[in-house]
């Protein structure tokens, strides 16, 4: 058996209390726990106070702001998102990408906020303790070498959040709560794209420590979006390549992920080839046991198929 390491657990009843708890040294937010708990058990994360967000009802649920888009509480379970009528109508690709996460039981626990902020992944890093110790760790945890690119100095762990490529094409923004200096809570809005652009392998996003993601805001968009997930197993598996493609009046856009530390956005104005643009922009590396060559080849196949689905 692998026991959970001992650590303090906080269950704040208010946003203020949550922000105060998150300000403790080493504190970590616990949403669905479907990624954080295994990482803690495997020793990938150092144990610090766990701040459960479960008592914060304000972070849960889907609403329709005046602009006609969607505001989705960060603690909304993925299964609720998948079956929500407003999401199905206004952002069907989001519902569908959420439905590819893990398994039905995990989607009941996992939240949209948790998925958006999902840590990067690498087959050399996401290992239990004996195997990781035999490698001597890696740049992301307890080590000095990246086993994907041993001569380099950067971490290549892959951005793997299933919903992010679709949310980026939807122009989603993140509503983030910060602890104010004196006057309580401060709320900011940041484009998701700029937050994940700061992903560098070691981290998956640029959310400041102590900040709390409260909602994902999806503006009203007319673009049609198709997403595709390539994985070794049809369920209970992370993608080895995630592709989302949107058709606009002026051309095509794609976001490709699970190929490197940050999702890659590719735009192709009318008259140019999105497939060729994606093919030259996306170069997967050996973060997965599935070979990078095959994954690169799948960039072409999957973007082509997504384009065909939207053209039809």
């Amino acid at each position: 058996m692998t026991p959970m390491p001992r650590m303090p657990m906080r269950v704040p009843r208010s946003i203020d209390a949550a922000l105060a708890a998150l300000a403790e040294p080493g504190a970590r937010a616990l949403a669905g726990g479907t990624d954080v708990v295994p990482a803690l058990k495997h020793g990938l994360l150092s144990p610090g106070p766990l701040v459960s967000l479960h008592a914060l009802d304000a972070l849960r649920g889907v609403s329709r702001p005046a602009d006609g888009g969607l505001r989705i509480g960060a603690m909304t379970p993925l299964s609720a998102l998948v079956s929500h009528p407003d999401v199905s109508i206004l952002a069907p690709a989001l519902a569908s990408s959420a439905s590819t996460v893990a398994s039905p039981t995990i989607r009941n626990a996992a939240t949209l906020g948790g998925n958006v902020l999902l840590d990067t992944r690498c087959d050399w890093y996401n290992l239990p303790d004996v195997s990781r110790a035999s490698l001597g760790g890696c740049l992301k945890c307890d080590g000095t070498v990246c086993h994907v690119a041993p001569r380099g100095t950067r971490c290549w762990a892959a951005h793997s959040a299933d919903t992010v490529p679709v949310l980026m094409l939807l122009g989603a923004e993140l509503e983030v709560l910060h602890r104010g200096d004196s006057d309580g809570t401060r709320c900011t809005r940041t484009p998701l794209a700029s937050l994940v652009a700061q992903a560098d392998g070691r981290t998956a996003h640029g959310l400041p420590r102590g900040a709390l993601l409260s909602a994902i805001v999806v503006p009203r968009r007319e673009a049609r979006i198709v997403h595709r997930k390539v994985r070794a197993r049809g369920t209970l598996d992370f993608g080895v390549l995630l592709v989302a493609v949107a058709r606009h009046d002026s051309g095509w856009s794609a976001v490709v992920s699970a190929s490197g530390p940050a999702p890659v956005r590719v735009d192709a104005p009318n008259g140019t080839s999105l497939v060729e643009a994606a093919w030259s922009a996306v170069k997967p590396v050996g973060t997965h046991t599935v070979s990078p060559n095959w994954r690169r080849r799948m960039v072409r196949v999957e973007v082509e198929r997504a384009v065909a689905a939207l053209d039809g």
Partner: protein
Amino acid sequence: MSGSPVGARGPKIDGRARITGAARFVADLKLPRMAHGAFVRSTHAHARLRDIDVSAARAMPGVLGVMVGADLPRRYGAIPVARDETALAVDKVRYIGEPIVCVVAVDLELARRAAAEVRVSYEPLPAVLGIDAALDPTSPIVHDEARKPSNTLRHVSQAFGDVDAELAASDVVVEARYDYPGSTHAPLEAHGALAAPDPDGGLTLWTSTQNVHYVHKDVARVLGMDERDLRVVKPAVGAGYGGKCDPFCTELCAAHMARTLGRPVRIVLSREEVFLAHRGRHPTRMWMRMGLTRDGDIRAIDFKAWADGGAYASYGVVTSYYLGVFMGMPYRLGAYRFEAMRLYTNVPPCGPKRGHGAIQPRFALETHLDRAAEVLRMDPASLRARNFLGADSETINGLRITSNGVAACMDAVLSASGWHTRRGRLPRGRGLGLAVSAYMSGALHGIHGDDLSQSVVSVRVDRNGAVTVFSGSADLGQGSQQMLATLVADRLGLQPSDIRVVEADTRLTPVDLGSYSSRVTMMAGNAALQAADAVRAQVLDAAATQLGTAASELRLEDGRIHVAGDVSVGVSFVRAAQLAEARLGAVGATAGFRPPLQGSRHRRESVGPSPAYSFTAQVAEVEVDEDTGVVRVVQVWVAHDCGRALQPSIVEGQVEGCVAMGLGEALHEETVHRDGRLVAPSLLAYKVPTIHETPPIEVTLVETHDPIGPLGAKECGEGPQLGTVPAVANAIHDAIGIRLDAPPFTPERVLRALDARGRAG
């Protein structure tokens, strides 16, 4: 329910407990003052142990004891001629993950933290990785302590008939090389053991095992205990598939530390440790030459198999024989020769996994037959059919076949899959593939080479009518309790729900060699039947005296004993049991079963002979995406000759489970090592298919009423897996015209093969 339970679809007697979570596994067992153990494991594939510093761990408050290899240095191993393992590594480590130190503390979290404080200093040695390295005479020796140091555990050669002459006289000779990968069992429950000192000075060991008898013998021997002082109990077990056949460090260390500390010690492996304990499928490189006549008669097979066995022997001696001995079944061969080697390397030890040693050669054989059919321009089914052996026959290597339903099995799947009308007429990318196989129902000769019973079973009847069956066999979820209850209920005119089964407790249950080699229905079933028949005679005689009639005039059914043809004249089973007790003093019987030794031309061979063989045929339909290389299995039709289906739902479940496991090996599963390090030591990374990826599996049961099997029954839990991978390989060839000789058939491999064909033009 009324009437005989044999062939009926009643509920599984332990089904509710398992589904509701009420069943108690080792990890559920708790005793007062119970301590917890954790292991320090090797981070090197091959190294001498220079120094082990446990002082920091020992000094931590709450740490109760620390054990190293030198504390329990006696070697153990399932097969007496190949004991090469110690509870913890002594002097040298031979694979990444080998246990070196066991730390016992008041709780598990502390034990693990203390284990992390142990400092091991290694003198690294070059690691022997892969078959070529093991065969290279300049490589280091994994077991340099052995008397004849070499990296070969066993080298077997057998020849029957003049292979060279037959090949020379053949119209066609087909030759190919096959590489079958390693894979692991992935039981849902991790291995665990709880040992507790008994008040009388003995020791009780609860363990997640497939065979309490072997654990009993080896733990007593290694600990230097009198076997009579040790009691080994198997609680509920969450599957094994062969992965829980060996004794393990959990059992040896829990037992040793419980005795040392005088308190209960429980050790349950983590999921990663289950992957490292392994004993899974041997990666095997094979070469096959097959000579045939123009008409498709098989004149000769020449076969070689080199198996990468990992760091310890496990059942590897037996594996080397299994790689060759089933090749001639169910086919008539003019001549046959095989050579097999089981090698030592520096990766976790391989051992018995469902279809032990027979899966790899069956993949080669059934793929090879399709190759031959292509050369001969024959239908693969016709080629097989013309070479089938029948019932009451003997293979070229002297294995006696009793019942044989292979032809009926093949007809069933050909017809169910629409083989004759659909094969070759499906759209591009779709294809059908066929494979046929045979497997043993237990080994005729036990591994200890004695002339004792393979299985002893007791049936006891109390004066309240309670019937209890005592058997040392191990139910791992596969339904052996149900099998015993069904047979005994049938003989006593009861239902399985009327029978309680006490199983796998060396103090309470008579010896059974355990749940492996598909032996339990054959061995324990026959013993149970004999014991039940003795009890049946006891109650019948008593009832006959009471009713003033002859026992032969009586019938047992629906909980009553009555005169044939007149249900109103009779007594209840409970009353009959009381009458029998009054007459005899006690009601009950114990019987042992040892399969009848059969005449064979090749008596010297002790591995391969079985009382009866099961037969399977299956057709897989696949869809191949030529852009991505993704293979999707659309459906599998499988027919299995199980002799007789004592409980059809359970037999079908076993057949479906075999096919599902086979599909995992066909498409996803492979134990890959990089520099000796397991690449996918988790259920997320190691791709066992889920129900989502498992296609419809249509099962047909063929009943041939075997003369030796209990009420005609043969095995059903392993044989149906043998043909799944070659059926998929043959279907891929039918779909896109490429042959894949190295499973799993991943998208990358499919595309590589398509690219190679494209280049060839």
